[in-house]
């Protein structure tokens, strides 16, 4: 489990630095962009993680690809990852960083599954209702999932509040099975 804890350190450092220099959003946006580009281009990914290629060559390759589109700080972070052999963990670092960033701002991300997109008013209502119980500021993330048929399914961290039609049907099914 030491693997995940080192990744956590990178993520925390990234978040803290970003907030100090007020460039967190830009930094993360750059990194997400880089991450998706690297994952799309497997050849490039292989080159960057190849142990036989020197660090300077990798540096050059990155500079050539992204040129001025990303900031110096982003470059530095990427160089650091390459040097430490952690480039493959970039996606997980970003995931953890997003979580840490929300926590540092005392925000809680709630995922709301619905069949049709929620309106702003609906989202606000959900936020109000939920913040009463957990006493923390919330931001909601709406996920469209036609499988639930209707109603809402809310994920509050480790807690699932299931008010969907599908959930109701499943509960009914279980009740009938148990009755037999």
């Amino acid at each position, binding site marked *: *489990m030491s693997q995940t804890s080192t990744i956590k350190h990178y993520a925390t450092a990234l978040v803290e630095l970003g907030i100090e220099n007020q460039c967190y959003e830009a930094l993360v946006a750059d990194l997400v962009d880089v991450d998706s580009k690297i994952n799309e281009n497997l050849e490039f990914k292989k080159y960057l993680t190849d142990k036989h290629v020197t660090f300077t060559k990798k540096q050059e390759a990155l500079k050539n690809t992204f040129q001025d589109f990303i900031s110096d700080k982003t470059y530095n972070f990427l160089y650091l990852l390459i040097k430490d052999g952690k480039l493959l963990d970039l996606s997980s670092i970003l995931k953890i960083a997003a979580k840490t960033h929300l926590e540092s701002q005392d925000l809680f991300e709630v995922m709301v599954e619905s069949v049709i997109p929620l309106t702003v008013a609906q989202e606000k209502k959900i936020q109000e209702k939920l913040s009463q119980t957990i006493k923390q500021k919330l931001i909601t993330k709406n996920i469209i999932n036609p499988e639930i048929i209707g109603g809402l399914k809310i*994920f509050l*961290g*480790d807690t*699932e509040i*299931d008010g969907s039609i599908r959930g*109701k049907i499943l*509960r009914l099914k279980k009740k009938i099975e148990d009755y037999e």
Partner: protein
Amino acid sequence: MVQKKDDYVIEALKKQINEFKEHVSVDTVGRVLEVGDGIAKISGLSNVMYSEMLDFGSGVFGVALNLEEDAVGAMILGDWLKIKEGDVVKSTGRVLEVPVGENLIGRVVNPLGEAMDGKGKIDSKIFYPVEKIAPGVITRKSVNVPVQTGIKAVDSMIPIGRGQRELIIGDRQTGKTAIAIDTIINQKGKDLICVYVAIAQKESKIAKIVAKLEEAGAMDHTIIVLAGASAPTSLNYIAPFAGCAMAEYFMDKGKDVLIVYDDLSKHAVAYREISLLLRRPPGREAYPGDVFYLHSRLLERSARLDKEYGGGSITALPIIETQAGDISAYIPTNVISITDGQIFLESDLFYQGIRPAINVGLSVSRVGSSAQIKAMKKVAGKLRLEVAQYRELAAFAQFGSDLDESTKNQLERGKRIVEILKQGQYVPMAVEKQVVILFAAIKGLLDNVDVSKLNEFEIGLHNYLETTVPEILKEILEKKEIDEMLEAKIIKTINEYKSTVEELLVKAEADV
């Protein structure tokens, strides 16, 4: 019935009218991070317990085994190919438990208590946890009631008592399972319930065993817990614990149970696989550090309870398969040190035709002799000595041919005792019959019977006893003791029988 149902519906409607409420379910959930080889890693599940059942949806369950800082390692009971990354996993709030009860008797079930014999669903309302702490010192009682295995060599020299744990150990194909199955068959019509746990055994072998038990009428008191060779490793791992839980139900009811774990070496291998997949550090022979605890906590659950606590018992017959007779490997030494003795089977003896191929020198029962009936104790003490002396002499006599009379006599008697201890498979013998024939052997009454015809003589003698003087057998069974009067009676009867079967005796002229 209909009226009752209507009332219930009306009552429910009234409640709804008074206070309409939409029900939602609130669960603790996690998401599958990775899955493979019957093991899943799950994020979330913040309040999950160790050994808690997890619901993977679509009828697949798992058990939480590794509780880490930010993930849970779980083994999957059943088809793990249905599980995808990102699937929602719900905690159930229950530790792993299996159905137990009377209606499992006579059935073949998997370690989760589901029927495997096609005889319909098993409806059991009672569940027992798979992992349970063994009974403590206060609740236990010393072992002094015998389990009759029906095998002459075992009942006389390595007696097993109720609540004992007797290991059956030996190479492959030496008759380990045969001893266990004969013991189960011998419990027919007696008060012992049997549980046979097959761990990673070939299903063909189990089918054969079930057929044999049914033929012998022994399924009426037997539960078979089957985790076949093709079953997921997780089922092999929980099988003995599940079988033990089923046995504990009967023990708690004050009944006596016999449980056979066939075999624990494969169980250790299954646990090793799970542990390595969960990335627990490997130790000797790549087994995890707690493989000793794995078996000790299982076998410690065999006990004889004091009358105040119900008076039930679980007798365990764990089986261990050795490689080329190596009893000093890791798992064999572990289990030998946990159990109260072992029955050691050897392939050399097996091929010499000595079946059951029990090595009397290496086999012991640490609590057994107090669990023998007095009559058996009387003949068994001398028997062990005679067998040991015979083995020593036989090894020594190989070098020389000039032997004095007394040595020759001792060798002849030894040969007959070894011959008498041979026994066919699936023909367990009642204890009173065992006593008579062993009594005859140690008193030298068989010394003039032809060794090659001893088997025939034995069968004939038992028939003769049953038909002409059945009171002798009855007396042994009731008194459980051989007094002087009975002794004289037995000697007289055997001599009478001998006079009727002179063709089985050694010809006196040929001897000279």
